[in-house]
């Protein structure tokens, strides 16, 4: 009995996977909100205007330029524990989704900032997107997302710190 079932499983399981692959890809091709299967990672693709949110992503060079000009306020959207282990120098911690209630404590700094840059870690991390979207909805203008910010920043050897800035 066992070998008979095993033999069946050997062709049924791959066939089921192939079927799912064909239907999934086929339907994705046909639907209007299709996902790009090659190229852009989901998190970056989700930045498009399709989401109805204006939160342009910026790259490392632009983030660095704004940092050097001291024009931007960096917001670390990761959990407080990861923020404590290290973050972009001068960045404030506003963890998503706690930011919905916590942002009031840094509202003055946000108001004063010309550009707000949110970041988290990893190309697919969406905390920064969610935070940016939230801040935009709250009426803050000029919110940008530095995709994969923490990793890129560290790899470039740019200034970081482990302690919390004076206020915040």
């Amino acid at each position, binding site marked *: 009995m066992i070998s008979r079932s*095993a033999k069946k499983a050997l062709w049924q399981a791959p066939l*089921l996977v192939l079927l799912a692959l064909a239907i999934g890809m086929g339907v994705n091709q046909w639907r209007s909100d299709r996902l790009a299967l090659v190229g852009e990672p989901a998190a970056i693709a989700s930045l498009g205007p399709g989401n109805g949110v204006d939160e342009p992503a910026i790259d490392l060079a632009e983030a660095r330029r704004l940092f050097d000009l001291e024009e931007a306020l960096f917001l670390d959207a990761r959990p407080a524990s990861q923020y404590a282990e290290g973050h972009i120098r001068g960045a404030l911690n506003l963890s998503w989704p706690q930011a919905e209630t916590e942002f009031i404590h840094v509202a003055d700094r946000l108001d004063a900032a010309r550009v707000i840059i949110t970041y988290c870690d990893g190309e697919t991390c969406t905390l920064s997107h969610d935070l940016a979207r939230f801040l935009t909805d709250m009426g803050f203008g000029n919110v940008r997302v530095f995709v994969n910010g923490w990793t890129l920043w560290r790899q470039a050897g740019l200034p970081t710190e482990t302690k919390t800035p004076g206020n915040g």
Partner: protein
Amino acid sequence: MADKMHSSDTTAAAATAASEEKTGARVGRQAGILPVALRLLVGAVFLYASYDKILHPGDFARAVGNYQLLPAAAVNPVAVVLPWMELLLGIFLLAGAWLPGATVLSTLLLTVFSGALIFNLARGLDVSCGCFSTQIAGSPATWWTVARDFALLAASIWLTVSVFSSGPENHRGQDAAR
């Protein structure tokens, strides 16, 4: 669909009962109910799980990406195919068709899901489950989520073992009814 399943299973149960009375195997009759119930349960859960993901592939892709386990290039393809895999498994399990293949795949998938959940909980990553809803803010993954997954996994393993040890005939309604 549910009605059709129900009627076919009732027919199947009757057919099983009849054949057992003929052979005088009264013990086997009780053992036959649990696999069917588990099969319907796991199938229904897969069916339910696929629904929201198929409707919102973009949101599901973000949920998959949040796990930070797959290379970026694999996130979208997985988000596109996985929900259909779940739908197919749900349909096949409910219908009692291709049970050797379907139970093995369901066990495999649930093992991967549990592993991904545990891995991210252990490394302290705050991910959304993305199990039944694609709303990232709504359903944080917790140890409770893992327990739920383990319960399903246990059911799936049990089902797989019972299919493999007694052959699919005892579990399948459809073919006997046809």
